[in-house]
């Protein structure tokens, strides 16, 4: 077993503002521990990539950030996670509000079996973000434009979201997440079910989105992590092994394990 040093948070050193800060996060599924003492800062208006072999706890960590783990029976989270300095796990916090501030895009595109329009409009509707139909239309249009899907679907807003292609569906899901104006968007392997062209589309999109949102993305694709992210965190067996500037992690990793992983020697 390799000795693992706990890394020092890097983004602050790089001059960014910390949006989400995790300190000493342990996650248990029943008796099984999935994350061990994770300290990680996610910088505002930057893309942070989470990499690591399957089962190392990337998704688990991501789901802690919007309390999606709450719905899993037997899942327990300890430690502290703050959003703009506010403890996400405080007793007084409203989980539903957390999720409207921290949106999520899943591995498999999962549009609602409703029209394209209703998919995007659903979030704003339940949160009362639009006062009338015109405002809602505007939100839908803006969100679809931000997700660079507008030109492809503007004539078929009434068609079911499930009738779009895989890549379009995933961008629809991104638009749906954007529509509630979250501050942070979590993406769990958003391209793993897509073809290379759709993947390129989404990667481009992620780069544009960071001006308005803070993004954390899980990916198994090292090139993708290198292309889209400013910071990279490498997880292994539930521990955060290395975290830092993406360029530094990929060109000059501190840990040999990181080196081995990104060069494809294991994982």
């Amino acid at each position: 077993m390799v000795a693992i040093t706990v890394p020092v948070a890097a983004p602050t050193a790089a001059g960014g503002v910390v949006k989400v800060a995790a300190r000493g996060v342990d996650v248990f599924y029943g008796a099984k521990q999935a994350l061990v003492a994770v300290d990680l800062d996610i910088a505002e208006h930057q893309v942070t990539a989470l990499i690591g072999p399957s089962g190392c706890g990337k998704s688990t960590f991501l789901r802690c950030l919007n309390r999606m783990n709450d719905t899993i029976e037997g899942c327990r989270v300890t430690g502290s996670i703050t959003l703009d300095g506010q403890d996400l796990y405080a007793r007084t916090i409203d989980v539903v509000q957390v999720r409207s501030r921290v949106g999520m895009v899943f591995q498999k595109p999962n549009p609602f079996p409703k029209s394209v329009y209703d998919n995007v409009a659903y979030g704003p509707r339940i949160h009362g973000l639009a006062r009338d139909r015109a405002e809602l239309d505007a939100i839908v249009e803006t969100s679809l434009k931000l997700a660079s899907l507008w030109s492809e679907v503007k004539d078929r807003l009434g068609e079911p979201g499930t009738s779009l292609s895989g890549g379009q569906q995933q961008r629809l899901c991104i638009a749906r997440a954007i529509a509630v104006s979250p501050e942070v968007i979590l993406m769990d392997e958003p391209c793993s079910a897509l073809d290379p062209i759709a993947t390129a589309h989404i990667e481009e999109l992620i780069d544009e989105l960071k001006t308005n949102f803070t993004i954390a993305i899980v990916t198994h694709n090292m090139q993708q992590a290198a292309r889209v992210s400013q910071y990279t965190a490498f997880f292994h067996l539930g521990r955060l092994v290395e975290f830092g500037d993406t360029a530094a992690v990929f060109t000059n990793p501190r840990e040999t394990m990181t080196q081995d992983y990104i060069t494809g020697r294991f994982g």
Partner: protein
Amino acid sequence: MTDVLARDLARARNPAVAARRAHRRRAAEARFRAASVAGTAVALLTLVVLLVALVGQGLDGLRATRVALDVAFDAATVDPDGTGDPAVIAKADFNALVKEALRARFPDVTTRQDRKRLNGLVSSGALYELRDMLLDDPGVIGTTQRVWLPASDDVDQFAKGHIDRAASEAERRVSDQEIAWLDALEADEALQTRFSRIFFTAGDSREPELAGIRGALVGSLLTMAVTAIIAFPLGVATAIYLEEFAPRNRWTDLIEVNINNLAAVPSIVFGLLGLAIFLNVVGLPRSAPLVGGLVLALMSLPVIIIAGRAALTAVPPSIREAARGVGASPLQVVAHHVLPLAMPGILTGTIIAMARALGETAPLLMIGMVAFVVDVPTGPMDAATVLPVQIYLWADSPERAFVGKTAAAIVVLLGFLITMNGVAVYLRRRFEVKW
């Protein structure tokens, strides 16, 4: 090792072996298809035979024989004081009018015995028709009108050819004398068998020619309404709670096991439960659709809950995650996404449970719904019976004329079922979501 592999490869790639395999596969498929077709054909044939027999007999039960008589609405009998008051007219002796009309038609019948027989040609329900006729139009008082009056069930059976004229007099229910009268009426074109509304407008009766399905139909409708109103929301709510909100622990496991067991409990036990609780403890009236509906709701609940849970589980978890991901509350997740997607399945389960409840007799025996009820119920607290019980009662009656009624009642019950299923299909279509 490699030898084995080489041998297997050679065998697998041998065209003769492959051809034999394909042949066997095709033969198996053909056998399977033939068996399926045969099975379906047998099922269809049985269904057709059943329907043809039922509809044939049922149509017979829908036709009724009537006798035309010149009834003199004698003012002295109907309204002696000339009041024109409906209350007085309603109490008049209409039986006397019928008897008088018969006597006028067959003046040479004199003995008491023969008179009685003659009066027996016309149904005892005739007087109500005369009464209603007069109440509708008091203008006919003092005139003589030709009126088609319902014949008694024996006359009806004879007119329909169910009584053999050639049989010896002792073996048939109509005497030679009666046949002679009927032939005379027939010759005057005063005897006719045609479609009768009575079956659909009347409640039960001891006289087959006056018995109708309406009481039982309304009873079934009321009972089903109570069942649906109670079992559907309760069942769906329970399914949602257990599936979406309840923690998994020993208690919920226990509840789940018990619900599954309840679904298999014989229905008569629910009847006993209803008797003990709704009648003896709560003190609700016997024979009431409310109680019947409650009992059937208890019986249907486990089925609806189980079907509901199955439908809810079938909704992909990704939809729940997607909804939560944009900040939908647990209630919103269920109400906006999970429930609408599960609705077709829930409705299917509910309809299956309701169809079973509709055909149920045993638990209703326990709460007094087998009673002989003449009046059509007007509310869930009135004494009533239901279609299957009515079928049972009629099938059990000795009169030959109830055979047709029984068949017609079965057709009505089947029609009810088909309507219910039709509604279910419609609702399912409406809720169905294209993926």
